[in-house]
């Protein structure tokens, strides 16, 4: 039972940490393949206006994606965008614009492995306590 708990909890931790990294990376558009024209750009305020605003871009293939503020600033409704997956530049109306990962992703790349290690270490310590108590 305890080994099943251990496996499940560590797995949940890894999946959630990986999801955090993926979502932050996807907001830069670098891992995405995009081709089409922008049909809408929407900025929604969050708790800290100017810091955690949400920028939503809709492409004419119907896809609605949240992107980083720096990328949203480069786009306009009607812009023709084109890029291959994992390319660190995007073509906007024939003009090539470099893309960059956000500070969020850089932080996540360090923080998430550490959080997974903390979860694994906690499980290890709890298991060791249970084992030593049983002996």
């Amino acid at each position, binding site marked *: 039972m305890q080994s099943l*708990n251990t496996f499940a909890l560590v797995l*949940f931790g890894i999946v959630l*940490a990986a999801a*955090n990294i993926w979502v*932050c990376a996807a907001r830069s558009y670098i891992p995405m393949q995009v081709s089409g024209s922008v049909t809408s750009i929407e900025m929604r305020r969050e708790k800290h206006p100017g810091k*955690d605003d949400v920028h939503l871009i809709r492409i004419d293939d119907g896809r609605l994606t949240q992107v980083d503020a720096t990328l949203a600033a480069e786009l306009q409704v009607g812009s023709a965008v084109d890029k291959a997956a994992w390319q660190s530049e995007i073509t906007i109306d024939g003009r090539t614009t470099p893309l960059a990962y956000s500070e969020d992703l850089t932080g996540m790349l360090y*923080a998430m492995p550490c959080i997974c290690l903390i979860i694994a270490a906690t499980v290890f310590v709890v298991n060791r306590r249970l084992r030593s108590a049983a002996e």
Partner: protein
Amino acid sequence: MTEEPSHAHPNATRDSDRRFTLLCLIPGITATLTFELFLGHRHDYSGHFAAGYGASLVAGLLFLKNLPSTASQTSRRRWIVPLCVIFIGLGVLTEATIFRIACFDVVDFCNQSLGAVLAACLFPAYATKSNPNSSAFEAGIIIGAVFLGAGGVLAVA
């Protein structure tokens, strides 16, 4: 498998409770500081993590304490993963409703769920206690409430 047999010496129980208190404190503080160290420009990330950890710790300990006293330690431990899944699900619900400001933020959801997972890692240490009313319960509830409050403050800081 018992962490402390019912005939345990009071000093052994006290030591066990103290160790459980440290178990609640050290991983939670270390993880929150890790968020602040690498993602200090977004205190709301650490806030969501701390709130998820605190709320799950409080709710999990309350649930395990109130299981029937006849429940075996194995059956108590069977609840740990389902509890974690329920807390993650409650996180989806709150993020999609009362905490939905601009949109459902997947990063906030992942951070609070990571807090729930870390809290669930501690549940086996409590579920195997022969005396659920020990001071470990009170310490865990207080620590959980402090994390929840601190998380709320950080989330809007």
